[in-house]
C-alpha cells in the first residue's frame, strides 16, 4: 500500500512538474467539477495560490453562469468543448477573455465512464492581439499586394508603350535604312572624322566593304587604294558646302557633294552621283558642235572669197547697188564666221582644252594688243578713249596671250559699242600682297538693267537694251571672256547703272595656277 501510494505520489509529482513546465493554462477537475490539479500557468492566469482553489468547483471562475452551465452540460455528454470568448475572473476581479477547451477523460478502454475533465484556457487577449496583428498584417499585405498588382500593371503598360515606341523606332530605322540602301546615289557619312556609314552604291563605286571602311578615320583612309581620292578632296580648309567632280578612271566619273557641319566641321555628309553618262553625253554634244562648226567653215570661206572677188571687181564691173547688196551679204557672212568661231571656242572651253600656250608676257604688251583698233573706233564715234599702260618693271604674267587678248578685247569692244557719248577709261593697278593685276574698263554707256545683271555672263545672253539697239553680237563674248579669265585664276565682275555707265573689273594673278588641296598627314 505504501509503495503504491509512493508510486502514485511520485507519478503525481512528476505529472505536476511536467504540467508546470507547460506555458498553457491547464486545470484538471473531477467529474463533479472540483479542481484536482492546476498548473503554474493556470494559477498565474487567475492569480490564486494552489491551496486556495484545490477542491473548489471550477465554475467560480466563470463570469457568466449560464455559459458555464452550458459548457459543463456538453462535457457531461462526453463532448469536447471549445468556448470562444469565455470570460473568467481572476482573484483581483478582473475579467479575462479566453478560449476555453474542455475534454473528458475516461475510465477503461470502452470510454463509457467519465473519470475527469481537463480544462485548457487560452488567453484571447493574446490571441486577439495576435489576431488583430495578423488581421492588420493581412490587410496591409493585401493592400501591398494590390499596390504591387497596380504597380505591375503600370509597369506592364510602360513596357508595352516602350515596346511600341521601340517598334515604331525600329520601323522608322528600317525605313531609313531601306531608303539609304536603295538610294540611287552613293552616301557616306563621317562623324567626328570617322566613317559611320557607307551605303551599297558607295561601296560599289569604291569597290570596298564596310569592314574596310567603317570606324576608320579620314586620315587612315588616305592609304586606302580607292577611297584616298575622295578623302583627299576634304582638305584643311573646309567650306560649308563642296561640289566637285571626281574621276575614278575612264569608266566612272562621280559628282561629289559634301556638306560640312558641326564643331570644327568634323561631320560630313557625302553624296556621290554617277555622272559618267552625263559627262559622256555632254562630250558628245560638244564634239557634235565642234564638228558641225568645222564643217560650216568651208562653205563660209567659199562664200567669203567669192563675194570678195565680186566686190574687188574680179568678176567684172558691178553697179553701185549691186556692190551695196554684195557688201551687206559679205558682212552677214562675216558675222556667221564669227559665230562659228565663238561656238568652237565654247566647245573648247567645255572640253577644257581652251588654254593652250602659256608664256610670260608684260601686261602692257597684252593691253596694247587688246586695245587694238578700239581707240580709233571710239574716237570716230566722238568718244574720248584713255588708257594707262602698266610699267614694264612690274612682274610678267603667265598667260595664253591669244586668249587673254581675246577676253580683254571683248570687254573693251563692248564698252565702245554700247557707249553713245562720253568716255572710255582703262586703268590698271598692281596689287602687291595678292600678286595680281586689276584692270578696270569704265564707260559712260547705256549700262546694264538691274534684272539683267545676273545673266550677263551666261551663254548667248544679250541684254534687253542691247537687243533693241543693235542686232550684232552673238552673246558669247562675255561667257568666253569670263571663262578665259577664270581659267587663268582670275576674277571678273562689274558695276553698272542703267543710263549712266558700266565698269568692268578683271583680276589676273601673276602666277595663274589654282590653289591645290593638301592631304592632312
Amino acid at each position, binding site marked *: 500500500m505504501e509503495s503504491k501510494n509512493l508510486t502514485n505520489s511520485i507519478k503525481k509529482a512528476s505529472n505536476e512538474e511536467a504540467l508546470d513546465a507547460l506555458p498553457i493554462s491547464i486545470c484538471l477537475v473531477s467529474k463533479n467539477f472540483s479542481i484536482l490539479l492546476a498548473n503554474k500557468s493556470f494559477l498565474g492566469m487567475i492569480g490564486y495560490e494552489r491551496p486556495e482553489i484545490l477542491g473548489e468547483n471550477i465554475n467560480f471562475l466563470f463570469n457568466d453562469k449560464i455559459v458555464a452551465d452550458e459548457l459543463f452540460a456538453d462535457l457531461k455528454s462526453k463532448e469536447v468543448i471549445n468556448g470562444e470568448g469565455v470570460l473568467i475572473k481572476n482573484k483581483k476581479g478582473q475579467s479575462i477573455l479566453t478560449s476555453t477547451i474542455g475534454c473528458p477523460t475516461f475510465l477503461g478502454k470502452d470510454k463509457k465512464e467519465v473519470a475527469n475533465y481537463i480544462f485548457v484556457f487560452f488567453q484571447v487577449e493574446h490571441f486577439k492581439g495576435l489576431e488583430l496583428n495578423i488581421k492588420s498584417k493581412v490587410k496591409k499585405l493585401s493592400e501591398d499586394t494590390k499596390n504591387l498588382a497596380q504597380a505591375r500593371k503600370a509597369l506592364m503598360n510602360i513596357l508595352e508603350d516602350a515596346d511600341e515606341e521601340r517598334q515604331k523606332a525600329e520601323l522608322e530605322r528600317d525605313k531609313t535604312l531601306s531608303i539609304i540602301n536603295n538610294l540611287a546615289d552613293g552616301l557616306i557619312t563621317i562623324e567626328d572624322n570617322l566613317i559611320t556609314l557607307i551605303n551599297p552604291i558607295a561601296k560599289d563605286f569604291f569597290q570596298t566593304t564596310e569592314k574596310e571602311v567603317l570606324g576608320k578615320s579620314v586620315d587612315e583612309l588616305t592609304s586606302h587604294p580607292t577611297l584616298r581620292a575622295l578623302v583627299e578632296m576634304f582638305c584643311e580648309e573646309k567650306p560649308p558646302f563642296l561640289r566637285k567632280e571626281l574621276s575614278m578612271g575612264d569608266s566612272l566619273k562621280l559628282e561629289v557633294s559634301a556638306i560640312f557641319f558641326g564643331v570644327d566641321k568634323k561631320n560630313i555628309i557625302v553624296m556621290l552621283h554617277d555622272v559618267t553618262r552625263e559627262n559622256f553625253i555632254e562630250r558628245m554634244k560638244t564634239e557634235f558642235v565642234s564638228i558641225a562648226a568645222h564643217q560650216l567653215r568651208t562653205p563660209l570661206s567659199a562664200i567669203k572669197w567669192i563675194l*570678195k*572677188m565680186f566686190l574687188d571687181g574680179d568678176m567684172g564691173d558691178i553697179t553701185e547697188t549691186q556692190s551695196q547688196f554684195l557688201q551687206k551679204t559679205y558682212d552677214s557672212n562675216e558675222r556667221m564666221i564669227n559665230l562659228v568661231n565663238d561656238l568652237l571656242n565654247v566647245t573648247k572651253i567645255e572640253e577644257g582644252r581652251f588654254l593652250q600656250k602659256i608664256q610670260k608676257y608684260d601686261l602692257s604688251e597684252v593691253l596694247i594688243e587688246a586695245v587694238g583698233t578700239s581707240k580709233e573706233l571710239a574716237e570716230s564715234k566722238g568718244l574720248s578713249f584713255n588708257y594707262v599702260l602698266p610699267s614694264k618693271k612690274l612682274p610678267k604674267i603667265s598667260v595664253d596671250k591669244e586668249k587673254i587678248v581675246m577676253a580683254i578685247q571683248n570687254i573693251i569692244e563692248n564698252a565702245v559699242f554700247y557707249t553713245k557719248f562720253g568716255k572710255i577709261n582703262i586703268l590698271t593697278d598692281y596689287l602687291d600682297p595678292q600678286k595680281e593685276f586689276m584692270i578696270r574698263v569704265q564707260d559712260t554707256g547705256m549700262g546694264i538693267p538691274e534684272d539683267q545683271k545676273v545673266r550677263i555672263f551666261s551663254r548667248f545672253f544679250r541684254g534687253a537694251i542691247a537687243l533693241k539697239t543693235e542686232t550684232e553680237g552673238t552673246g558669247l563674248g562675255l561667257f568666253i571672256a569670263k571663262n578665259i579669265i577664270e581659267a587663268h585664276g582670275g576674277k571678273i565682275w562689274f558695276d553698272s547703272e542703267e543710263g549712266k555707265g558700266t565698269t568692268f573689273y578683271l583680276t589676273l594673278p601673276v602666277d595663274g595656277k589654282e590653289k591645290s588641296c593638301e592631304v592632312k598627314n
Partner: protein
Amino acid sequence: MSKKILILEDEIIISDLLAKKLSFEGYSVKTAQNGKQGMDLMTQETPDLVLTDVIMPEKNGFTVIEEMKQNEMLKNVPIIIISNSGQPVEIDRAKELGVSDWIIKTEFDVQEIIKKVKNKIG
C-alpha cells in the same frame, strides 16, 4: 615657163576658186582631191609650190608634208597650209616641218592668199 602650183583640197568649191584665181594670175595649176592623189601628182611632176589642206581623205596634210620631206625631189618645195582651223600646237608643228604659212580659210580672202603665193615664188 609659168610656175607650177599643186592644190590639195577635198572641198571642190575651194579648190576650184583657188585654181581659177591662180590660173588667172598666170600660174599653172593642178588639183588633187586627197592626199594620196596629191602625192602621186607631186612625184610625177615636181611643183614649185604646194597649197594643202590638213583634213583630207586617204592621207592628211601632215602625212603629205612628212613624206615630201623624205623625198629628195620634194623636200625643198615651199608649202602653204590652208585649213579650217589652227591650234597653236598644230601650227608650231607645221612650222617645225618647214611650212611657211598657215592660213585659216575664214580669216583670209583669196586676194591675200595670192599675195602670199607671190611672195613665196614670185
